[in-house]
Every structure is written in structure tokens, then in C-alpha cells.
């Protein structure tokens, strides 16, 4: 893969409701910040990829609302419907094709405007599953139970993730939900869908973010510290929950295997300095750490309990506070990439981790992490 760099990033603050801002307002804010971060003018953006979801926006062709605000006027532009990590992957391909020197990728989401369970219920098959009322939380509860039973993972181990990530969020001004919690408090929070409790869940959020990718030639012309894309891969498992072993993370393993191979990483546990992954629920952090190869299958609980994943641990995971501390869907994936880029640059402010040379960002699409996207970023080309 030819070298491509992240040269600019922009995030809005994630909040429960940003009532004053429509989609276009949020996207403009994030795009402006990314341009300023890169020291670029909109005219230096060669093409644009917007990311949105028609269901979440209650709008067919949800990208239409942001065409003014993302600066796509008189540019080639396209729209990915899915997590921001996937949209950014397409933005990367458009540079690798040789057609464009720079791509702006922007993504927006307003969870405050709809009723989330009705939207995520629509992920499920209309004929065989939807009538059950199954949606993101209840399906994830099935996965959590399958995973915990198979490997003897405890609810306390999951609760540790909630305590850690909400605490990390205090250092992140963009986060929505910094909380000082104890394991007991998480354990005492009410069950939403056994074994998932209220404090195991991400919040509903509004927000937008943007990233500017550039070819090596274009990146060198900018006065920025480029963050190089070392590897990117994505992979989907089966759809019907009954067709999957829900405790299995094979699609993530496959995506991670390819991404690491591109990055020349043989042993991720040694080579990776920081991870930002899609922790929509606490158990997911444990499972995804296994799928990403940071511990053996079934060892995620022990890894969480070891303290290694703390912000000052051996392998900081979600030092930003993760999705548990702010989850504008779709945006949340791109925010994982942005957090990794900031860490690699040394620009993560109070949440900066020392000596981050290589970072892994991760996003998901579909029910129970059916489809995974893995990014490896580094400071060296």
C-alpha cells in the first residue's frame, strides 16, 4: 500500500442533545476544525466522503442535508452508510487509486432526534426476527450471555470496563459522560437486559467528526505531523444470530489479521501501544480485545482485571473514555481513529499516553459486531 496519512482531525463535543444544531451545523463545525487542524483551505480538499444513515436521520438520502456544510461543492463526493471507520476506508481507497491527493471524510449522528430501539430494531429481518422487538441492547445481551457463559467471564469483570472508561472520560473535553464509579455501583445499576445493566451501556449522543487523509506527496506539503495509515481491513460474519456462534470473534480476527499483515505487525500485544475500540457495551471491550489478538480467546476478563488496559497500564484501551462515554453512532468509529491519531501525534491533551508509536482503532457495523473494521496507525511511515 502506498503511504497515506491522516493530516487533519475535527470532533464536535458529544452531548446528549445538541438542540441548536442540525446535521449540517454539526458537520460544518467538525469539517472546519479538521481543516484548521491541517492548516488547509477547503479548496485543497480534492474529494469528499460523507457518512450517515438514512434510518437514524429519518431521511432517505441522509447525505443531502450536509452537502453545503461538508464543502463538497464542485467536488467529487460519495456517501458510505455505516460506521465511520468504513467511510474512512473508502476515503483511503480513493487516494490509493491515484485519482485524489486528499480526501475529507465527515460523519454525523443525532441520537436525540429518534427513538433508538425502533431504529436498531430495523437492523433485524422483517419477516423472522423484527416482531420480537429485538434491537441493539437485547441482541447484545444474547451475545454477552453466550460469551460470558462460554468463558466464565463475570459481570464484575465487565463492570471494570465501565469504571475505567467513564473515569478516563474526565480527561476528554469532547466526552459526554465522565463518571466516577465503583464496581459495586455498576453492579447495583438496574438490568436493562440480563446480563447488561444500565452502567454497562453507552449513552445516546449527538455529534459529528471529520478526518482529512492525504497522499504522502500532499502530506509533505503541509505543516503537520502526519499520522500514517499502516493497515486497514474489514470483514463481515453471518447475519442471522442463529447462524453465528455469538461468542466467536472470527470476523474481527480476520480483519485484524489482514490489517496487522499490512502493517507488518507479527505480535500485536508487543507492537501496539494504544487501542481505541468500539465498546458500545462493556462486554464488547473484552471480546474485541480477544479478536484483536491482545489476549487469547476467553482471556478478556482477566486482561480487564489485570489493570493493563488502564490509561497508565501496559496497553491503554479507550483512554478517551470510549463509546461508553459518548456514542454518536457512526461518528463513534471515526472518533476512535481520531483519538488514535491524536495520541500518535502527542496532541491528546490531558488524556495523552506516553510514547504512543503504534495505535489500533476499531469500528463495527450491524448487530452484535457482525462486521468489523480495523485500522493500524503509526508515527513512522
Amino acid at each position: 500500500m502506498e503511504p497515506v496519512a491522516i493530516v487533519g482531525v475535527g470532533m464536535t463535543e458529544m452531548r446528549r442533545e445538541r438542540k441548536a444544531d442540525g446535521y449540517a451545523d454539526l458537520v460544518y463545525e467538525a469539517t472546519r476544525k479538521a481543516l484548521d487542524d491541517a492548516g488547509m483551505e477547503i479548496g485543497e480538499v480534492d474529494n469528499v466522503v460523507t457518512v450517515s444513515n438514512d434510518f437514524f436521520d429519518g431521511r432517505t438520502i441522509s447525505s443531502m442535508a450536509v452537502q453545503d456544510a461538508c464543502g463538497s461543492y464542485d467536488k467529487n463526493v460519495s456517501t458510505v452508510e455505516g460506521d465511520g471507520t468504513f467511510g474512512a476506508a473508502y476515503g483511503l481507497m480513493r487516494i490509493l487509486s491515484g485519482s485524489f491527493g486528499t480526501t475529507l471524510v465527515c460523519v454525523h449522528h443525532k441520537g436525540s432526534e429518534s427513538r433508538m430501539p425502533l431504529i436498531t430494531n430495523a437492523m433485524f429481518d422483517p419477516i423472522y426476527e423484527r416482531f420480537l422487538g429485538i434491537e441493539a441492547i437485547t441482541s447484545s445481551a444474547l451475545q454477552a450471555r453466550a460469551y460470558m457463559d462460554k468463558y466464565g467471564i463475570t459481570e464484575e469483570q465487565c463492570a471494570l470496563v465501565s469504571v475505567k472508561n467513564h473515569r478516563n472520560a474526565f480527561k476528554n473535553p469532547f466526552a459526554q459522560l465522565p463518571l466516577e464509579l465503583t464496581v459495586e455501583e455498576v453492579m447495583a445499576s438496574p438490568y436493562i437486559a440480563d446480563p447488561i445493566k444500565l452502567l454497562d451501556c453507552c449513552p445516546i449522543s449527538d455529534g459529528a467528526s471529520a478526518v482529512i487523509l492525504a497522499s504522502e506527496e500532499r502530506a509533505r506539503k503541509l505543516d503537520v505531523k502526519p499520522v500514517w495509515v499502516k493497515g486497514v481491513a474489514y470483514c463481515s460474519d453471518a447475519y442471522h444470530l442463529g447462524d453465528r456462534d455469538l461468542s466467536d470473534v472470527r470476523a474481527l480476527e480476520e480483519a485484524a489479521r489482514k490489517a496487522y499483515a499490512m502493517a507488518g505487525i507479527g505480535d500485536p500485544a508487543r507492537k501496539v501501544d494504544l487501542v481505541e475500540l468500539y465498546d458500545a457495551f462493556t462486554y464488547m471491550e473484552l471480546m474485541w480485545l480477544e479478536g484483536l489478538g491482545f489476549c487469547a480467546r476467553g482471556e478478556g476478563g482477566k486482561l480487564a482485571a489485570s489493570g493493563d488496559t488502564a490509561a497508565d497500564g501496559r496497553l491503554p484501551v479507550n483512554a478517551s473514555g470510549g463509546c461508553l462515554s459518548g456514542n454518536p453512532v457512526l461518528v463513534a468509529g471515526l472518533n476512535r481513529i481520531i483519538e488514535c491519531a491524536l495520541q500518535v501525534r502527542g496532541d491528546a491533551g490531558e488524556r495523552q499516553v506516553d510514547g504512543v508509536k503504534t495505535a489500533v482503532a476499531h469500528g463495527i457495523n450491524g448487530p452484535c459486531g457482525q462486521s468489523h473494521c480495523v485500522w493500524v496507525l503509526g508515527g513512522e511511515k
Partner: protein
Amino acid sequence: MAMAEEKKLLITLESGEAEQPFRWSAGIYGSRFLTELRDNKRFVGIRCPKCGKVYVPPRRVCGPCFVELSELVPVSDEGEIVTYTVVSFGFVDPATGKQKPVPYGYAVIKLDGADTYLLHYVDETDPAKIRVGARVKAVFEEERTGSMLDIKHFELLER
């Protein structure tokens, strides 16, 4: 199995009356526009500091200039027709779930003082009586709620 027999066996599933309710934000300037309509029966636009274009309804960003807008300016409740049609096919209005009554006149309208256009009804259902360039004036509802439907329609000033 014969084709006709097989067809009889095919099942479709009706989604029923279920719908997904939304609560969209109009944004700061959109809210000002709708408030002016509701409270004062007046139109406001927003001027681009770079190209000078007046957007109605107001939006936050001028796409071509990619700059933020903030200068609200009054625009007239009168204007002219840019293009028009008369809708005569029946369809279900997704906002109400009911059949929209047809026919109705419908036009893209340039208000005096604006550079972009509004889509709205005109009080005429005979296309031969409407023309591009015809002058129109907004007619407001008595009861107004802060929506585009606070404008009942645009009245043709010449027939």
C-alpha cells in the same frame, strides 16, 4: 407446482401502522425563520458575507463559498414564480399517513430580496393560468405553529 398455484401460496408481511417518530432540529437560524413566520408573518433570509447571496430559508453555510453565515435580513412576502406544476396524482403524505388531496398548484418561488427559492403551494390548479414570472404573495394561516404550513399558500397576483 404450477406457477399460478405457487403464487397463491406467497406470503407478504404488512408493516402495519408502526412508524418511527423523529424530532428534528431546525437550528438557530431556521428557528428564527419559523418564529418570524409564526409570530409576525414575516420572512427572513441570511446573507453570505462573501458572495452576498441571500438564502431563504436561512442556512448556516454558503456551499460555494464555504463560509459561515450570520447576517439575517428581511425579505418580502411577495415574489415571482420560477417554475411550477399542478400535482394531480394521488399519493400518501408520509407526514400524515393520509392521502394528500389533489389537484394542487405547486411552485418554486423567488421572494423579492432573496437569491434562493422556496417551494410552496399556489392557489391555482389550472396550469394554463400560471406562468413563469407571475407575481405571487404569501397568504398566512390564522392559527400558526412555527412550520412551513403556517403559509397557507401563495396567491397569484395576476391571472
